[in-house]
């Protein structure tokens, strides 16, 4: 940009030199984008790198006044200790079951709900669709106190104790994930031309067949995007498990790491970092495999929804 401005006075004289340059503008645009991309990459990668470095240190080295960005005597002790601990594996298992089941329940509800809201025009369908999205806008921090009351009521009325069970989270998480996933899917389904389901209808497909044989395959990128979102929410949720589960056998990873590895005022930093790093691995792996779908799905939903 700056260069183009400098070049212009010479170009106005009839020297025959080129006025500005698309190529040069483009180069500068690229330099700027690289500058900011690298800046942000450093900014966001610093914490996980610091975690990784710390996870390779012994407690003594962590508390020693040495360069925090360097490991002088690397050790895998934190990893070995954590992975041989029964407790950590229970957290991991709880998290995995909760996240996978949340994804399954959410996707079944969202896809069917979105199909109905996007395609079967019925009285109040538009209002319902907006309503679904509005529920997503209510902060979850406002919800856990009423949920406490509801659980107490369920316990008093039916004698079912919902508190302090990992499976309670499977009931809880969908109310965070279903509205958003439904909204994404409504947008995605709405972008599918109406003629497609009409063609299927004439071909003899029932609504269910239209959904399973036409809509789900066509909207697969959107479904994958919603799945990733849902998995991430369920995997990383902190507040609800902190509020609703207490026994160490019922904890999920994020809460488990914090509550069991911080004993009083003793922070076992090496293991906390290791646990957090290992805990971040599953979503990372899923992202890496499905990244292209995720982006395609999000943008499609964004423009057409």
């Amino acid at each position, binding site marked *: 940009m700056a260069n183009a401005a400098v070049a212009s006075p010479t170009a106005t004289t009839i020297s025959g030199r080129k006025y500005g340059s698309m190529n040069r503008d483009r180069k500068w645009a690229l330099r700027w984008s690289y500058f900011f991309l690298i800046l942000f990459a450093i900014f966001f990668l610093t914490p996980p790198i610091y975690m990784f470095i710390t996870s390779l240190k012994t407690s003594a080295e962590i508390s020693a006044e040495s360069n925090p960005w360097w490991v002088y005597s690397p050790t895998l002790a934190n990893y070995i200790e954590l992975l041989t601990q029964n407790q950590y594996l229970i957290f991991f298992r709880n998290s995995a079951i909760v996240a996978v089941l949340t994804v399954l329940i959410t996707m079944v509800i969202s896809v069917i709900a979105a199909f109905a809201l996007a395609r079967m025009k019925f009285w109040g369908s538009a209002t319902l669709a907006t309503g679904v999205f509005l529920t997503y806008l209510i902060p979850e921090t406002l919800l856990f106190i009423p949920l406490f009351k509801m659980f107490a009521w369920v316990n008093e009325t039916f004698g079912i104790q919902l508190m302090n069970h990992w499976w309670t989270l499977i009931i809880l998480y969908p109310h965070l994930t279903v509205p958003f996933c439904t909204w994404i899917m409504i947008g995605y389904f709405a972008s599918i031309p109406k*003629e497609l389901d*009409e*063609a*299927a*209808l*004439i*071909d*003899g497909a029932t609504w269910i*067949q239209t959904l399973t044989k036409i809509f789900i395959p*066509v909207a697969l990128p959107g479904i994958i995007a919603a799945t990733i979102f849902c998995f991430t929410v369920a995997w990383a949720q902190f507040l609800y498990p902190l509020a609703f589960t207490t026994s160490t056998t019922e904890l999920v990873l994020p809460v488990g790491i914090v509550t069991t590895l911080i004993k009083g005022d003793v922070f076992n930093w090496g293991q906390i970092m290791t646990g957090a790093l290992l805990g971040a691995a599953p979503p990372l792996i899923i992202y890496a495999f499905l990244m292209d779908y995720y982006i395609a799905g999000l943008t499609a939903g964004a423009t057409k929804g």
Partner: protein
Amino acid sequence: MAQVTLRKVVKMYDEVQAVRGIDLDITDKEFIVLVGPSGCGKSTTLRMIAGLEEISGGDIAIGGDVVNDVPPKDRDIAMVFQNYALYPHMNVYENMSFGLKLKRTPKDEIDRRVKQAAQILDITELLDRKPKQLSGGQRQRVAMGRAIVRDPKVFLFDEPLSNLDAKLRVQMRTEIKKVHQKVRTTTVYVTHDQVEAMTLADRVVVMNAGLIEQVGSPNDLYHSPTTKFVAGFIGSPAMNFMPCHLEQAAGALRVRLSDTLSFPVPADRTVRYAPQVGKANLILGLRPEHITETRPHVEPNQHDFQNPIDVVEPMGMETLVYFTVAGSEMCGRVNPNAGATAEKPMKLRADLSNMHLIDDGTGKVL
């Protein structure tokens, strides 16, 4: 046998009447084209036949059975959409066989039918491709193939060529006609393009504002329109309309366009037009091809007149000339070598043997 019958069919959208009680009899194996300007109700009518729109009143019968409440899949119809509506995740073979699979047709039967349809449409080598790997014309063929394999009672086409470029459109038009000649299935075809309507149809149904204006063979509509709308809609360039009145002079009828310009009415029409003498709101309709350059040899009912030309449009095989008579713009088709020049007077010839006299109040051709 698959005749389609519409009796007093009405479609309401809230308070708006999109289709206002139409009657139509389509005979077996017939190729019917519904044509009209956008919003005339032609697509709605087609979609009601398909069962994609509920009808608000009247009856629709396919093959003698009233199908008002029959879902689309049980009407034994096939539809080709404007945007093809191919299933993007299936290849051509799967697209074409989808309907048959849902009906649990045996595999070898499906295979036979798909291959046969592919052969008719010349898409055999495309069977493994996905829709996005096909050109517009190929997609349209596949959409037709999907209709043909079902061997339905009725084909429904909803503006199938509108998405194609002009050249391909003409090509596919011929293609559709060929297919119909081979398969001989009753066909209802919707278009807003009157050339498409004229070239394809056994009978054309001209619709306007939710009503049928006229039903007839392409030639009937062209030569004997019954309303001003049909007269103006069919034919390109459109028929010339000039306000006029009839006068009786020396025992003969004359149609007067301006103080200086009048033509004698052809002798065979004098009795028919006699009651209109002196009436207001009359319009003379004359197609552009009935206004030519003057020639040495004069046929009966041909009359020369001189008028300055406004615009000249050479088309190659002919030249269109636009000129103004008493405030109304007119178009004539003259020989390219007749020397038509813009802003110069030209001697033209009107052939009144094909004239139409229209009552502008009722819109009826008299």
